[in-house]
């Protein structure tokens, strides 16, 4: 008998095996509130979007009363997916296969050749299966059940520990959206996000404007909260040196970087507010989509701020290694981009997991405690303790 090799709380196979991946999909990602976009993604009656949330595909559509409805995206005839991605419908949703048609309340309203082909069909029992949708902090969330309880029961306790941002007043900066397919398990990606220990090492050149030594962090239920103040050298003249217009009042500057379970990171800083959506695709493949909101200000205000702060950032942002050191221009470790650094670290870690010689060493008591706690939370969900 071999002793399971461990990543501290979880076994290594939790990061490599299809079986673990499937259990997580079924017991975590298909049962909880999942991020589905920004509130402005649906702004007009008839607009819809569909989102994959674990094993469920759920679509959201706005009625003429401007309330959102959510349904499982499954035709009640033979199951065909009804809607793709985003779009706009009028008053009805028609399945492409045999034209069964549903209204925006999900009721089956027409079936072609009903009289000839379906004697005694009870259309009332064949409405779309309802799911739930809600808006919170400018974000859309879906839940597969029709009556999951208030979203505040899920997020209410962590909310006071999030940034003081008035998210609804910020606007999306679409050019800042990114999508990365990271060759690592989703938990590796999350653990990297909540690893406090790595901040001043991996990101020594990219995140030095925050004072990691004064970070406050911890779990509130399954959600992780993290806050750190600006570093002194940056705070001193932040109005001039912020790279973009400030979105927080001067006495509340800092960065909140929570990780809401399962896999929704937020980056709530003095100049921007962004989402970091972790989507598991395979045991060793994870998509991360980011979207960013900034102050609702003129282009002129943005370019002035960028110009004013340019010299400062030229001095204070650098790659972890100098180009001369590594000799390669296109390397994440010289990029001066903390996201590239994180992706690199995650993929390098995943590469080792299948080696028979892989073994974890000691875990930092404080700075890596969130990593161990997150593993415990995943385990609790899989073993039915949460």
């Amino acid at each position, binding site marked *: 008998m071999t002793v399971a090799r461990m990543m501290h709380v979880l076994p290594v196979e939790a990061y490599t095996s299809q079986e673990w991946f499937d259990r997580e999909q079924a017991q975590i990602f298909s049962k909880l509130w999942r991020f589905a976009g920004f509130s402005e993604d649906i702004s007009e009656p008839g607009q819809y979007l569909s989102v994959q949330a674990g094993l469920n595909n759920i679509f959201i559509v706005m009625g003429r*009363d*401007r*309330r959102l409805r959510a349904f499982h995206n499954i035709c009640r005839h033979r199951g065909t997916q009804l809607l793709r991605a985003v779009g706009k419908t009028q008053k009805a949703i028609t399945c492409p296969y045999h034209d069964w048609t549903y209204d925006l309340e999900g009721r089956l309203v027409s079936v072609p050749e009903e009289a000839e082909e379906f004697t005694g069909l009870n259309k009332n029992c064949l409405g779309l299966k309802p799911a*739930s*949708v*809600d*808006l919170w902090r400018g974000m859309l969330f879906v839940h597969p059940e029709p009556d999951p309880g*208030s979203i*505040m029961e899920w997020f209410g306790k962590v909310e006071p520990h999030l940034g003081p941002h008035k998210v609804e007043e910020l606007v999306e900066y679409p050019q800042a959206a990114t999508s990365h397919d990271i060759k690592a398990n989703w938990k590796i990606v999350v653990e990297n996000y909540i690893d406090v220990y790595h901040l001043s090492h991996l990101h020594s050149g990219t995140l030095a404007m925050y004072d990691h030594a004064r970070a406050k962090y911890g779990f509130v239920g399954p959600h992780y909260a993290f806050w750190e103040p600006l570093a002194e050298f940056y705070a001193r003249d932040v109005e001039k040196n912020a790279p973009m217009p400030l979105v927080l009042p001067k006495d509340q500057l800092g960065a909140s970087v929570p990780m809401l379970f399962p896999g929704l990171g937020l980056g709530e800083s003095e100049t921007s507010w962004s989402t970091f959506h972790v989507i598991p695709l395979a045991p060793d493949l994870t998509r991360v989509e980011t979207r960013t909101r900034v102050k609702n200000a003129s282009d002129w205000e943005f370019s002035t701020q960028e110009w004013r702060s340019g010299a400062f950032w030229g001095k204070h942002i650098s790659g972890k290694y100098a180009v001369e050191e590594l000799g390669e221009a296109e390397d994440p470790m010289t990029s001066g981009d903390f996201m590239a650094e994180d992706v690199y670290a995650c993929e390098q870690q995943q590469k080792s997991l299948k080696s028979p010689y892989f073994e974890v060493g000691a875990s930092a008591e404080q700075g890596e405690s969130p990593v161990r706690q997150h593993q415990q939370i995943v385990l609790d969900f899989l073993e039915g303790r949460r």
Partner: protein
Amino acid sequence: MTQAAPQATRSFHKLRVGETRLEIGGSAKTIVFDLPGALCETFRWRPGQHLTLRFNLSGEELRRSYSISSSPFSDDRRLSMRITVKRVEGGRISNHINDNLKAGDKVEVMPPFGGFCLDPGAMRRRTHYFFGAGSGITPLFAMIQSVLSDEPHSVVHLVDGNRNAATILFKDELDRLCDAYPGRLSVSHLLSSPSLWSGFRPWRKGKIDAAAIEAVFAEYPPYAQDVQYYICGPGDMNRFVRTALTSLDVPVSRIHMESYGGAVAQDDTIKGMAATARVTLGDSTQSIEVAEGQTLLEAARAAGLTPPFSCQSGVCGACRARLVKGSAEMRARMALEDTEISKGVVLTCQSLATSSELEVVYE
């Protein structure tokens, strides 16, 4: 919460008027009751419920129901139960209250009841739309106050219709709430005939129709997606607003309403038949005769029983009872939910026997 015995909750209690206040230039009066500590439980109310008042005017007994226009979640419930009564042309009680009632007077009051309620929840997160007109604002005001104080994650949008600025009840109180709860309350005033000289600019002119509702939804789209709609206004307003809402895809299960004053749709084609009814009221059961065309309530009172009742028009629900045997039909059923009807609940003031033997239990 302990439920007071049915006798106590459906009988009248003499309450002292603690304070009165004129509203809208003397066209309405607010009555604040002094609740003695011993009656606090009996008079515990849910936002949206009403009180029935009984007066004896020149030898005649008259009853009227008025919505409680304050939240039960205030710091001192003994000093906060109030109603606001608008003068009605030719209305005997409303004018009596406005002309004569003063602090220190005793009034006979039946404890609160009614199914048009909003129970706030600390963890609930809802968008509540309120559509009120005239004195229909009174129960809505209690609901609004309650949501703001006791449902902190929820948002309220009020559309209030009135003739002109001078007739808007609670206008200053609403302004104060808007200031006290920024971002959580919007108030849209509609005036059907705004006065040219008034400095007040309404949100919109006209009545609460489909166009106005669509405009409100566009201007204040729901944020929390558990959305509820409450309507309370005179006459036909409820029906119109409800039709307008459903034409905009609002499911009926989310619409709550109460008819306020004025005519209620009645089915006068029901004639009923003569019958014998066994009536249980409190601890005693008695057989009474019901004549053709007579309501169960009329028959019970004619037989000397004292069943609870108030509006006698199917609106308030005070006269409700359960039909455990036989059948009856109701002329109006405004005060009942469909689920209650399916459980055999009837409004005795509206029920005519349609079988010759009945059993009715007031509970």
